[in-house]
């Protein structure tokens, strides 16, 4: 065997203050020994790779013959630290009132998190032929606690509870196909089984007032099957290619509703999805590139119809829809350096089971112009337009009550983009992107009436060979949302968000053996919401936050095979929102647990790593 790769060993020191859950949202860092292994091995046509770092993976195979991998990964999603509850039975699906609701300082402390452990294996065999077979399986174990809110009668009308997460998701696939440069055909079957050990969360609603045990439904076991096939054929004419894809999937479940509420029966759910896509790409003349396409997607719901046990007037709706799109994209080279592109798409969507709409039709258009006449300058301009002809059912009583689903409402959306890439000199490049879109719900009298977005991005790269490389980016986004209440409340609300982000990255090589790098990222949001009615109090802080990240790193190339790295990372997050300020565990008629509250943090991480290359 011939080997190459890297080994790393070192340590890190972590100092954190504030909410460690947000500070380590997708990781579980600590002051500890760190390291990695990354090894490649070869012999003839055989190759092998071993990776021990963020995940553990062993993969290998024989070129053009087969390949296989086996892997393990652990992903922890920390949600909230130091939450609390007055219930006993944490991590079970039966929460019992401790009777100590009045004093949150005495409640049980815990963290909200979900940890996913994934183990999988997959392999593909082609035996040096155009045919191949692939097979794989994966198991994901998830455990933790999620915040669940619920509503009941009694003094504590709203309550936030730690719901247990104890899921297992098993998936497997089997595929086969034929692939050459002229024809690629694939067929693949997927199965997935989701198991939840806790399909109901029982909790004491209000023991002192005699309210009985309540049941909160959690995701039940479900199964998923899918078969999909695709073909891509490249005929020898017009540099064309034809692609066809079809798929059918079903997901279903079966559960005993009486476990949640006495007097209920069973529910068998079944949803089937069918899709078909076709696209033909061709170039009848050198300067013209064209694509025509058809898309079809259908969702059928064959689940049971169930009437609410406590209200015979309420029966579940079986939502179904089908959507058909046709369209084309054209690209035409006006000259060697100037091209225009245009496209059209028409989509007809029919809805069944919804009381608020029967469907809608979308018409989309875009036109783009690109120019590279100057070697150092590339320009692009694009405009787009969407016209949604919705069909909301205005006779529906829900509309009169203040409901109007914005996903099916009439909409006119216009967009524009302008971009330039400019090579200022041999060692300086500049990129500017400007974008704008505006969506007007033009037949809407209340709820969401207008969305507007503007963005500007600038990138600068500056290089001085053997002295330094640097890059800078700046981004700005402006978002405005306008809403109007119905005549009963009679007000308008306008929300505005200014989002800023910039970053700089500089690398400086020193003395041929050192590389010092500095990375700084800073982003912040300023949001507010204004009402036009004098008696309403405006929000000054809406999802305002600041994120700062500083990374300093020094790589020392000690020898041909040994490197040392010393680094420091600083992260700071501050969040300010009127909706969360002065968070209380017992506000009014509610009982909260602290989920998502006070997530400010400040982290300092120092690390050292020795790397050996071979």
């Amino acid at each position, binding site marked *: 065997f011939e080997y*190459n790769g890297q080994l790393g060993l070192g340590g890190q020191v972590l100092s954190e203050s504030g909410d460690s859950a947000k500070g380590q949202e*997708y990781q579980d860092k600590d002051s500890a020994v760190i390291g990695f292994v990354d090894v490649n091995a070869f012999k003839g*046509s055989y190759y092998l790779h071993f990776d021990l770092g*963020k995940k553990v993976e062993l993969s290998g195979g024989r*070129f053009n013959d087969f390949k296989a991998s086996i892997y393990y990964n652990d992903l922890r999603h920390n949600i909230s630290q130091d939450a609390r509850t007055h219930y006993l039975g944490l991590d079970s699906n039966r929460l019992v009132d401790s009777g100590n609701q009045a004093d949150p300082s005495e409640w049980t402390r815990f963290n909200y998190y979900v940890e996913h452990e994934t183990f999988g294996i997959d392999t593909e065999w082609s035996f040096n032929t155009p045919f191949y077979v692939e097979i794989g399986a994966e198991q994901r174990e998830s455990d933790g606690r999620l*915040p*669940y809110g*619920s*509503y009941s009668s009694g003094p504590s009308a709203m309550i936030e509870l730690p719901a247990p997460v104890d899921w297992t998701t098993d998936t497997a696939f089997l595929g086969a*196909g034929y*692939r050459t*440069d002229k024809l*690629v055909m694939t067929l693949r079957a997927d199965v997935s089984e*989701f198991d939840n050990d806790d399909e109901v969360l029982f909790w004491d609603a209000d023991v002192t007032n005699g309210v009985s045990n309540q*049941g*909160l*439904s959690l*995701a*039940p076991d479900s199964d998923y099957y899918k078969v999909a096939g695709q073909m891509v054929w490249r005929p020898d004419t017009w540099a064309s290619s034809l692609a066809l*894809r079809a798929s059918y*999937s079903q*997901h279903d*479940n079966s559960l005993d509703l009486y476990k*949640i509420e006495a007097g209920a029966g069973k529910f068998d*759910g079944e949803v089937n999805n069918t*899709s078909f896509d076709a*696209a033909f*790409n061709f170039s009848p003349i050198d300067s013209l590139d064209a694509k025509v*396409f058809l*898309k079809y997607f259908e*969702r059928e719901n064959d*689940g049971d119809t169930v009437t*609410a*046990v*406590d*209200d015979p007037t309420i029966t579940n709706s*079986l*939502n179904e829809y089908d959507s058909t799109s046709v369209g084309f994209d054209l690209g035409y080279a006006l000259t060697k350096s100037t091209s225009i592109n245009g496209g059209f798409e028409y989509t007809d969507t029919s809805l069944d089971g*919804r009381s608020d709409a029967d469907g809608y039709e979308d018409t989309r258009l875009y036109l783009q112009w690109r120019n590279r006449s100057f070697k150092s300058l590339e320009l692009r301009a694009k405009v787009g337009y969407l016209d949604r002809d919705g069909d909301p059912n205005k006779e529906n009583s829900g509309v009169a009550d203040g*409901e109007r689903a*914005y*996903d099916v409402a009439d909409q006119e959306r216009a967009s524009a983009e302008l971009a330039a890439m400019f090579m200022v000199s041999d060692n300086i490049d500049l990129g500017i992107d400007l*974008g704008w879109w505006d969506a007007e719900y033009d037949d809407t009298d209340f*709820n969401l009436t207008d969305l507007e977005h503007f963005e500007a*991005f600038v990138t600068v790269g500056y290089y001085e060979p053997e002295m330094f490389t640097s890059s800078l980016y700046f981004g700005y*986004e402006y978002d405005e949302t306008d809403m109007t209440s119905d005549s009963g409340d009679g*007000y308008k609300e306008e*929300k505005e968000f200014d989002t800023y982000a910039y970053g700089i990255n500089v690398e400086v090589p020193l003395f041929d053996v050192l590389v010092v790098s500095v990375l700084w990222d800073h*982003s912040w949001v300023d*949001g507010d919401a204004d*009402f036009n009615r004098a008696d*309403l*109090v*405006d929000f000054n802080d809406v*999802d305002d936050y600041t*994120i700062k990240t500083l990374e300093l790193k020094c790589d020392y190339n000690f020898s041909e095979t040994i490197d040392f790295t010393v680094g420091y990372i600083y992260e700071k997050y501050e969040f300010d929102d009127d*909706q969360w*300020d*002065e968070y209380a565990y017992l506000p009014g008629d*509610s009982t909260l647990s602290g989920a998502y509250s006070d997530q400010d943090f400040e982290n300092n991480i120092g690390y050292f790593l020795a790397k050996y290359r071979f």
Partner: protein
Amino acid sequence: LALLLTAPVLAAEASYVGSETCLGCHDDLEAGFIASLHGKAWAAEGVYEENGCEACHGPGSAHVDDPSKETIITFGEDSMHSANQQSDACLACHSASQEIALWDMGIHAKRDVLCSSCHSIHKGYSPLAAMPETCYGCHLDVKIEARKASRHPIKEGEIGCNDCHNPHGTLSKAQIRDESTNQLCYQCHADKRGPFLWEHAPVEKDCSSCHAPHGSRHKKLLTQRVPNLCQSCHERHGVYDKDRVFTGSDPSRFAYGRSCVNCHQNIHGSWAPNRRGAKFFK
């Protein structure tokens, strides 16, 4: 312009000269390639011995006679060959792949993105593009989104762009790796797939009606904060101004903290067989 149009013709009329001739001037490029995974695969298959440099760069005799960029296929932004011509050199081998089969139809090909924009053949061991840095090179808007307060674990390297998108092209919108957005999301979020007894119709149709998958300034990757997101369709329980939050004169569970979701927890759908289940309370 004349040079650009005639370059492929020159290449087609040229003949193979062998790698030894190429290395006479470009020997600095060989070591990196031989040590790379691509080089190992070629060595194992005998491709390098058979055609060597000219397997990708085309026959080199014209370039030997006139060592300019017009007379040989080069790769990158400063190549004299079109994006299609450069891609064709790679697709000559790689089009026989289910991952790349739809390259011609994809948005990257339509925008003249080059294979070499993302993949490096002569540098490094693996020609695979580093995610997400490679994508961020063009998609700065996504880079900024993915670093917002609420986000997927892209920064931590737990999710790569290509877990959800196939940059080489698919028949789906945004080149996602499934037929619909929801089916893609369910691959990881199986607990959200139902089927539900009480369905929230827009949820069943498109997760992105409410969620911004790359990142958001609002919690839970939402496109707007709650209650405003819910109020886009529903107007219930009166007014939610600053008087209704923790610090206000009339605090309300409808407005503070998680707002609507304080009570309507099962907003994706519910299985509780009662009227509160129908309203996603349980």
